């Protein structure tokens, strides 16, 4: 006796993008009123000019609903066409209920498979890979993948090494099946983890519950280990660095973004390859940063439909994941 299985699908593609940010802008000068820092120091170290912080009544689910709704609208599908919702997040304030089920319900998606995924700042790329593979295996038809974070709930506003970096927001993508090789728009994932380095980014287990980061160690890891992940993702898709039109790394620190771009150019990426610098006005929004940056670039006209984007996320865990995608 053998089990009946759904017919596999050749591949997956992104057909919609959406994002949202809180209205409240926090400038470097605002932070300098609270901690010993200044605008130039912050720009030099992390490249951030301003960031958005949610008010206390706005939850990460609220932001997930907004970004997710926009992505569904952009895809041309109806909410009822979505059968699976994944929310990548690492900043829920309570372990249950998860964000995905209530987000789906508020968007009007009926009884989908819905779960959260925590791979911190690599979360969106992990969730995109998972969603694409659920489609390929026949477990899902249309997947809404969301990265939503309210880092401000976990920031120590007196720690000048972290409060200048992190911010709030959400980004989302709708993923569906690709029936022919030319249609495939999500490449194979290159992913992994380095659990031996877990302590370098963590939420303190004592009563403070605030985010701690060993900046130098994370910077060294990110500037040396992430470009190889990106190169592996390119190779797995059967492409070369010269094929990449736009690089969208997790917006951790502009200097890390630039280091990854520099390394890719040494390996053959074109000088004209555009590089996401959304961190400058958005800060580091963890799992939200990649879809938000891509959505902002598309809205601004700096990327066009059909272009090849390289996504690579990395962060606490430590964890990392990257893949090439076709811009919807």
């Amino acid at each position, binding site marked *: 006796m053998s089990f009946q299985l759904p017919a596999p699908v050749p591949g997956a593609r992104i057909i919609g993008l959406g994002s949202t940010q809180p209205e409240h802008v926090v400038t470097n000068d605002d932070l300098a009123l609270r901690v010993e820092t200044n605008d130039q120091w912050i720009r030099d170290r992390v490249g951030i000019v301003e960031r958005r912080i949610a008010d206390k009544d706005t939850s990460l689910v609220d932001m997930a609903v907004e970004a997710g709704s926009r992505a569904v609208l952009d895809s041309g599908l109806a909410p009822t066409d979505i059968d699976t919702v994944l929310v990548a997040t690492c900043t829920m304030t309570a372990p249950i209920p998860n964000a995905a089920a209530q987000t789906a319900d508020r968007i009007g998606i009926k009884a989908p498979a819905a779960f959260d995924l925590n791979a911190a700042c690599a979360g969106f790329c992990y969730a995109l890979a998972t969603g694409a593979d659920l489609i390929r295996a026949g477990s899902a038809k249309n997947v809404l993948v969301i990265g939503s974070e309210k880092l401000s709930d976990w920031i120590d506003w007196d720690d000048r090494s972290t409060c200048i970096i992190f911010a709030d927001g959400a980004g989302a993508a709708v993923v569906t099946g690709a029936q022919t090789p030319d249609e495939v728009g999500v490449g194979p994932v290159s992913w992994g983890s380095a659990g031996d380095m877990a302590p370098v980014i963590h939420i303190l287990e004592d009563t403070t519950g605030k985010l701690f980061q060993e*900046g130098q160690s994370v*910077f060294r890891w990110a500037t040396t280990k992430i470009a190889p992940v990106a190169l592996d993702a390119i190779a797995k898709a059967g492409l070369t660095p010269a094929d990449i039109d736009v690089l969208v790394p997790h917006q951790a*620190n502009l200097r890390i973004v630039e280091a990854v771009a520099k390394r890719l150019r040494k390996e053959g990426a074109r000088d004209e390859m555009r590089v996401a610098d959304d961190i400058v006005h958005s800060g580091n929004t963890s799992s939200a940063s990649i879809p938000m940056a891509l959505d902002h670039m598309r809205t601004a006209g700096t990327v066009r439909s059909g272009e090849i984007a390289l996504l690579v996320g990395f962060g606490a865990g430590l964890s990392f994941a990257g893949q090439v995608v076709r811009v919807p």
Partner: protein
Amino acid sequence: MADSTEILAGLAEIVEEVAGIDTAEVSADKSFVDDLDIDSLSMVEIAVQAEDKFGVKIPDDQLAELKTVGDAVSYIEKNQ
């Protein structure tokens, strides 16, 4: 094995590439932070390149001890 003169010259090239400081400015008595105005993240980039170039390991806790260019040259010379 590079001698201290070769290490200083190699290190100066790395500092120039990472921080845009003329190699002539990079002498043994200079402090990375106070004289050359190099920040902690650029120090990491310098360390990573020095590791590749001289075949040494410069962990973050050791890196913090290397205050001057001369400190870095002697550390690399001893550990290469």
